[in-house]
């Protein structure tokens, strides 16, 4: 078991958050949020990885063969579905904002100050 995937997951998370904080474009910000989320996929899959394991399908493999953890794969799949919903909804909001407000620069959207 190596620590590298965990570091990669942390790095992806932080780079996504950095992008969110400094973003000057809302579409870019939603993209950064998706990047942040992909760190959760990496972490989940890293947790379930087994050295020398195959895919958890026992149809053509003996039942005692070494497989990777199917639970985290199910979790990742659910996570992807959730992420797709969130990203689609947020992008739709940005498109509508562009229509109504004429800009996607968060600095120009200051009506909710204070």
């Amino acid at each position, binding site marked *: 078991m190596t620590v590298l995937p965990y570091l990669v*997951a942390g790095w992806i*998370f932080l780079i996504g*958050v950095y992008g*969110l*904080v*400094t*973003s000057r474009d*809302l579409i870019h*910000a*939603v993209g950064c*949020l998706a990047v*942040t*989320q992909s*760190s*959760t996929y990496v*972490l*989940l899959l890293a*947790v379930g990885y087994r050295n020398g394991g195959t895919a958890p399908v026992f149809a053509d493999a003996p039942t005692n063969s070494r497989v990777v953890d199917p*639970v*985290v794969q199910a*979790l990742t799949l*659910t*996570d992807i579905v*959730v992420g797709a*919903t*969130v990203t689609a*909804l*947020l992008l739709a*909001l*940005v498109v*509508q*904002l562009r229509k*109504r*407000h004429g800009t996607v620069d*968060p*600095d120009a*959207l*200051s*009506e*909710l*100050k*204070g």
Partner: protein
Amino acid sequence: MDTTRLLPLVVALPLLGAAVLVATGRRLPRLVSDIVGCAFAAATAATALLVLFRAGRPGPGTYPVEWVGGWRRVGIVLVGDPLGAGLAALVSLLVVAVLVYSWRYFEEPPRRHTGSFPALILVFQAGMCGFALTGDLFNAFVSFELMGVVAYALTGFRVEDPKPLQGALAFGVVNSLGGYVTLLGVTLLYARTGELGFAQIGRRLDTDGPDGPVLAAFVLVTTGLLVKAAAVPFHFWLPDAHAVAPTPVCMLLSGVMVELGVYGVARVYWTVFSGPGGLSHPDFTRALLVLGVLTALLGAVMCWQQRHLKRLLALSTVAHTGLFLIGVAVLTPEGISGTALYVLGHAGVKAALFACAGVLLDRYATVDEHELFGRARELPAVGVLFAVGGLGLCGLPPFGSGLGKAAAEEAAGHTAGWLPALYVLVSAVTGGAVLRAGLRIFAGVGRRPRDEEEGGPETTGEEEPETRGRLGRIPVPLLAVPAALLAASLALGVIPAVGSAVGRAGALFTDTGGYRRTVLDGHAAAAPAHPPPHWQLTGILLGLLSAALAITLATLAVRRPVHTGTAALLAPVRRLQSGHIGDYVAWLIAGTALLTVLTVPGVH
């Protein structure tokens, strides 16, 4: 029928209702789709109440636990412990109230979109009920995201205006990020224990002492839940979202969704981390107490500063969340049951106040305190409801919120002697701000406030009404719903059975061993009895004191002009609320760092 089998229905019924509305809503007339929505919400409420009745039955400490589909080891588990079932019932009842309220509220839905609003509300209800009933961390995350996604959509429901879109975007980005942080924590716990259920993880963790990864998981999971709970400094999305969301949605966001975040923190701590393998009790108390006190104080100060009525109410929710967090932080059954009762009472009062603000918005097309000065004299009934709501908010006996506040502050007083003073102060300031607005708007007391007296840029409350044109006559549901909510909040404090049921719920909730035995082994001993929340002389006096303080503050504020110096002093605090998503995310990370610093002493 076995009540255990009813548990999945509490989540499935609203989802089914939403599906029916999405499939048929376009062809149905408005009235029919609203009735269908209300019927499904009401059926869910009845089911949740049945489960609650079973869970709250006196006797041995077992409550319904359902492994959906019979998959006992890896399946989805729903736990109907009295507190979770009670929250599901509260959610469902409030959803019914909101659907009845919005019956005449959204006068004219866009053509061919008749069923969309009730359908979204029903999905929201399913997400919240699922979160309250789940016994599993991953399903808690999924419910968290489900209610989040629907809440973003509902916040930006009026897609024709630019402001709701901004609020929904900030809400969406910050809350989703919080959700992903939670998922990272869940993954770490899975890596450590190979389990996802609260009870299973808790049992596995307790075989070892606490270490870095477990505490990191605690910080990550709690961060996401605190984002939902809008604790300082994770709260920035809340005023933006509440100021712009349609009023019926605000009733749900402030009434229950935020409180579910607090519930999540309490649930996860007690069932997963409270043993020897998690975070020690003093460490948890310290961490949550710091955040709770910060939240309560900042929320109260920001609330007092507002002239945008919905924003004012939103920030009072932040302040009260701080008080709820303190009630959880003291880690006693009394603190939990007091806070639970406080949440129940607060939900009714806050939803009623938002309902009154909605009436103002639709009649005058603004919720700005200064602009509305004296204009609502013609609505004495709404004025009375608003004033009663303000008094309920500051914990006047015999409101349920008053009894909950009294019980929670007494429990907190055992941990630190100065905490009851904080409860009194915060509820007096938030209640006072509401009463001040009420005096100006409905009675026209004092001098007309002039805009130049306030320092710096302000968020004023000019908005589009949510009904077709401005309201001439107030429809009955817009008055009946807040009246009923206030009456319910009052009843909670008066009926002794409520107090004893909540007391038992708190005792069972804090009985970690009992929870694990009930979920995993199917039997449990009765939880030790604790005195339920009941009226005591100190509580009554402190409740009266905070009400009197609130009235004094409100009267002083309308008699005296706003002091420019004070406003300028607080301007930097207000300036933090920049409306910029990047800033909010930076604060979220800063808050995570703060939580880490507060938790680190737990590593031994």
